[in-house]
């Protein structure tokens, strides 16, 4: 009896002949829903692969990738110069999906979407505009009866790519934006919710609330979203196609690592961004080819899973660029 138990312990090793490749990844929380869908779908395509992804946040993913404890990382913002320098091995960014930051609000009896400019958004978020019926707001929304209510600003309390993209947009478009930009900033007014869910809860429960959040969450909950004036002067509704539009300038001249915030294109929603997978430029053959196969699949067949989950599929031009980046990844033998 004793020995049968001992034997049982060895059973896993007996099957290691056709060992499944176990890939370890970690990083951004924002694309987690899409990624886990991808991993489960991909395990049906290639049954020998098991991908393990922990959504510990972009920062954590980058830190662990630099230390070399992961096979791939994931981030909502491109790695910074000093982070790239810290890594011993060169790292490649692969865009996987697109998203946008939308502005949502809780105003009773207002069914038409609000129209906003970056100047007005910035002034609400740094506390200069305090009431919903501020002249600057009513001037933009002449056919909407805005109430004399306090604007309750709601922001993301935890560090997040959503905040990074949103503050980057404000810093880029408004010279007098003093709050700064990054994954967590010191907001002068308002209340903070933890995670998109926390912000969502606060917006739904607080009359007069005004918040930024990931597009998927707002769409999923059917929250009202403001139309934002883009560089070309049009008020653009955040939709799958208007977000895709903002990535269409990516090509041989403009790398996808550059920000696509405040796009010049006519129909582009101005607060959009990529989410990236981060992989080493040189990988061991055994793991490398599995990762490359997965990325190829994600960039082609995988894209169709985006829309039902409220992620924006990449446009053709970005996919072309991403695929050529994948071709540059070098595989080497473990023995060499």
């Amino acid at each position, binding site marked *: 009896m004793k020995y049968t138990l001992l034997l049982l312990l060895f059973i896993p090793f007996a099957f290691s002949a056709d060992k499944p490749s176990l890939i370890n990844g970690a990083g951004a929380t924002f694309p987690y829903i899409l990624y886990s869908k991808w991993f489960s779908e991909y395990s049906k395509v290639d049954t020998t692969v098991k991908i393990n992804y922990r959504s510990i946040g972009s920062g954590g993913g980058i830190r662990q990738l630099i230390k070399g404890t992961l096979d791939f990382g994931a981030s909502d913002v491109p790695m910074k110069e000093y982070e790239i320098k810290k890594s011993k091995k060169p790292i490649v960014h692969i865009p996987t999906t697109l998203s946008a930051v939308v502005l949502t609000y809780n105003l009773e009896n207002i069914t038409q979407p609000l129209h906003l400019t970056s100047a007005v958004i910035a002034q609400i978020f740094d506390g200069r505009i305090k009431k919903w019926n501020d002249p600057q707001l009513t001037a933009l929304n002449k056919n909407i009866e805005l109430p004399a209510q306090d604007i309750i600003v709601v922001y993301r309390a935890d560090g997040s790519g959503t905040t990074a993209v949103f503050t980057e947009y404000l810093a880029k478009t408004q010279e007098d934006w003093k709050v700064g930009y990054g994954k967590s900033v*010191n907001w002068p007014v308002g209340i903070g919710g933890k995670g998109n869910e926390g912000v969502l809860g606060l917006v739904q429960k607080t009359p007069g609330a005004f918040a930024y959040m990931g597009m998927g969450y707002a769409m999923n909950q059917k929250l009202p979203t403001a139309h934002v004036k883009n560089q070309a002067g049009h008020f653009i509704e955040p939709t799958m196609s208007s977000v895709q539009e903002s990535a269409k300038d990516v090509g041989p001249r403009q790398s996808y690592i550059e920000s696509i915030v405040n796009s010049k294109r006519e129909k582009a929603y101005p607060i959009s961004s990529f989410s990236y997978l981060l992989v080493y430029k040189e990988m061991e053959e055994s793991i490398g080819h599995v990762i490359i196969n997965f990325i190829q699949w994600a960039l082609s067949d995988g894209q169709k899973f985006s829309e039902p989950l409220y992620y924006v599929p990449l446009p053709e031009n970005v996919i072309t660029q991403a695929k050529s980046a994948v071709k540059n990844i070098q595989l080497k033998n473990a023995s060499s």
Partner: protein
Amino acid sequence: MPLPKLFNSYPKIKEIHISDRLFFHILQILALLVLAAFAALVLLIFLESIPALKKFGVSFFFNPEWDSWKEDFGALAMVWGTFISSILALLIAVPISIGVALFLNELAPVWLAKPLNFCLEMLAAIPSIVYGLWGLFVLAPIIRSPIQEFLGKYFSFLPFFKGPQYGIGMMSAAVVLAIMIIPTISSICKEVFRSIPSSHKEAVLGIGATKWEMLKTAVLTGGRAGIIGACIMGLGRALGETMAVTMVIGNKPSLSLSLFEPAQTMASILANQYAEADSALHLSSLTAVALALFIISLIVNSSSFILVWNTQKKFSRG
């Protein structure tokens, strides 16, 4: 105070059978592992927080700014938020908890005491995220609309009731915390009251005291140190509570006097920012906050242990 000697009454270790000695040593190692884990934890937190403490010095604990964009970090707003929310929670929870403990121990009939005890234990078993969600979706709207509306209307000259109607903020956090620490405080109070010998109570009743006088003199006065210990234990729990507070406090590092303004606690800023902190200084400052929280909790918890332990010892000696 002399600590109890563990092996005084047993034969010397050498005289014990080998298997018992082995057993003793194995258990000793396991017990020491706890100490080692504790020491490793302290060491790690301390080492990680050195860069921030070097950069900002002692002023780290007196600086109300927390700005990761300007890389200006100070823990004062978080220390303030932690203490105010916990003390407000104590103010609400202590009278209720002592009342509950007295009622359950001394007054309630058995058919009522049993289900009440059960409910009290269930309160302690609810995960803190559930308290947080309840605070966000049920409590905050109540605080916003009747409570703050009323206080803001008639008492707005006081600095405690100012501010826009957020609903969440210091007040919501304090109420949620209070509900969370009631089971802790009242169950320890119950233990303290139980350790008071019934001969004391009978003696007081015997000289003609009413039930209330008996409770006041024998139970409350006799168990005073233990009650204070129970309160400090509750304080310890409130200081470290993370998830529920994070959901309802508004997460804004500020030094406002108003009960309705958002604030930030040490535990909640760690929960919020640690995962996505980019710069080394940001990470190190967060660890320094953790170090401060750790030291404060250590002081608070150990003082409560000493107080409760003393009460029980006092009566067990007779």
